């Protein structure tokens, strides 16, 4: 019994991390129709910058905010300097640019932060919560809380604000959005900044659990991408559903099958979902873009 519950908790914890990263994919996709393969590097930058800021003497909350803001700024600059001049609004070209950008960001991080793993203190010190033979680290509660806040805030942004609607309009038909007065270029820049900030938030929240290093972006990027596809890319709630499902699948595979097959199980389920419902579990079938 306690094993089942512990596996469940572990799955939900990893799942929330994947969900936070998947949200970043969702935002850029919603604005451009492209996958941002540098999303994992924003995750890495958030964690590394936060560690560096605390080492410079900033208290943890200030360091976290500064890390998220800096990463968001890097996301915006990345869009302005790399994505926009090279790719325009062609999704395929944006994808290529972000793959290259990921390599550049990773190597820059190596030279600036050095090659070693860094540790970050938990947001709240203290022993894990224990009930029914299950342990939950306090930092895991932070991850859950931040994921919930992020998804609600994003859903509100998209549904309730004209700014969010303008972002979605840009994705559906860039030229039409431009005709009704949306500054489509700026929408894409903001989307990249937002995605980078969210990625950094995830990176900061996870660093106390796992340590962080310049190379962590690639692996988490793949997981977040899989979660986004699994849930149905484009909507915040699907990203969260995909993330949690992926985390639970992995955790149950690790707990009840050979853990070596863990990543394999997740991939097989992803393939099956794509065969049966190519739009993802919660995604609506998309009209083919003109």
């Amino acid at each position, binding site marked *: 019994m*306690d*094993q089942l519950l*512990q*596996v469940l*908790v*572990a799955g939900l*914890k*990893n799942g929330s*991390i994947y969900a936070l990263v998947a949200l970043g994919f969702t935002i850029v996709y919603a604005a451009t129709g492209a996958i941002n393969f540098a999303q994992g590097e924003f995750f890495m930058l958030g964690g590394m910058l936060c560690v560096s800021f605390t080492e410079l003497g900033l208290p943890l909350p200030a360091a976290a905010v500064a890390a998220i803001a800096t990463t968001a*700024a*890097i996301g*915006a*600059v990345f869009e*302005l*300097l790399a994505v926009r001049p090279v790719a325009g609004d062609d999704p395929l070209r944006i994808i290529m640019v972000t793959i290259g950008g990921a390599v550049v960001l990773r*190597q*820059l991080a*190596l*030279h*600036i932060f*050095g*090659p*070693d*793993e*860094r*540790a970050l203190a938990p947001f709240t010190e203290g022993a*894990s919560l*224990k009930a029914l033979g299950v*342990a939950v*680290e306090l930092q895991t509660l932070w991850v859950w809380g931040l994921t919930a806040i992020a998804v609600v805030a994003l859903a509100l942004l998209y549904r309730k604000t004209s700014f969010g609607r303008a972002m979605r309009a840009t994705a559906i038909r860039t030229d039409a959005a431009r005709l009704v007065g949306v*500054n489509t270029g*700026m929408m894409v820049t903001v989307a990249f900044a937002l995605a980078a900030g969210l990625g950094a938030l995830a990176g900061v929240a*996870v660093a106390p*659990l*796992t*340590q962080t*290093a*310049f*190379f*962590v972006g690639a*692996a*988490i990027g793949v997981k977040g991408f899989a979660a986004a596809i699994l849930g149905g890319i484009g909507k915040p709630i699907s990203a969260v559903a995909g993330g949690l499902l992926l985390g639970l699948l992995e*955790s149950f595979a*690790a*707990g009840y099958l*050979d*853990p*070596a097959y*863990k*990543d394999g199980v997740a991939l097989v389920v992803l393939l099956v979902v794509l065969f049966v419902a190519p739009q993802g579990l919660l995604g609506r079938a998309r009209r083919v873009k003109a």
Partner: protein
Amino acid sequence: MRGRTFGLGAAMLAVVVVATLAIAIAGCGGDENDTGDGGSQEPIKIGAILSLTGTYAGLGEPEKNLIEMEVKKINDAGGINGRPVEVIIEDDATDEAQAVAAASRLIEQENVVAIIGATGTGQTMAIRGDVQRAGIPQVSMAGGTVITNPVDPQVFATPWSNTIVVPFTLDYLKSQGITKIGLITDSGGFGKDGQAVFATEAPKAGAEIVADETFNPGDTDMTAQLTKIKNSDAQAIVMWTAGSEAAIIAKNAQDLGIDLPVYGSHGIARREFIDGAGEAANGVKFAAGKILIPEAYGEDTEAYAVATAFIDEYTQAYGEAPNTFAGHAYDALYLVVEAAKRIEGDITPEALRDELENTAGFVGIGGTFNLSPDDHNGMTQDDLSMYEISGGDWTLAQ
């Protein structure tokens, strides 16, 4: 107005990014320089293939530092029998294909007499074909058992191999009355290797592996595996991994309230493990060479003098204490240099390889090396100590 403010902000950010780029590029400018300092005679060229970027950059960086520092020292003291040494360092980016490219460049264009490297087991194995074809000796700094077992005539390795560390750990467990082991290993090269050695060595030591769990590099939570170990009748958790996941295992075990002793591999002999695991690191035991606490050698021994000189000089040059990877590079470099010094006449790759096998009683950082045609690693269990982490530092375990 809004748009204009935005443009200004973007321009400022652009300046920051360009400045960062410039610093980064300046920082990597020195990567591929050679470290020989001339001399009247033709230098002896040695190649080094290190992982300066990519996942193993944390290992390759101290190796490079060490080699540059020692080569300067060797040349200041007259080089090898009057000839200067030149070590040409190549980066393999923790990538097999780039390691192969580096090896063929060193062999075809630089005509090196030996190759030191690579940093990782995968890269070490990848260049084996080139090394064999060229007939030059290779001294690896990677820990995989496959590198020297079975013995390849051309290939040597300096780290402690799992085939000596695992039996040493099993003996220690036995002395603590522990015969039922809950094993957790990573599915990468190092963990897989350790798992295989445990499977063959445990029965010999009268121990039983009652839980055999694995995880993938990069995993963020091991509570599922640890709960399975908890529910077995294991008397100790033994984790065999060199990655940062070891810290997660220690933390998860503490969170789950598992009060079994935790044992690690020599792969956690790094400050990063203590930093990452924090409180949970205390009480974790692992076997590694005596270099972590050189006093274990006895203060009037040659080994103690070598070890303390190594630590002092490295700390003075680079402002931080060396880790065990710098030690593996020290041993690799000096095995080659000392063998070359013993050669009378032409230093050819063939002569160097033969002379490496004659290494006897070389006191290095990892231990005392006695190489032979049957043993290309040359260390024994006598070169190891059992450590316990206590108060955030290494101590000798009782």
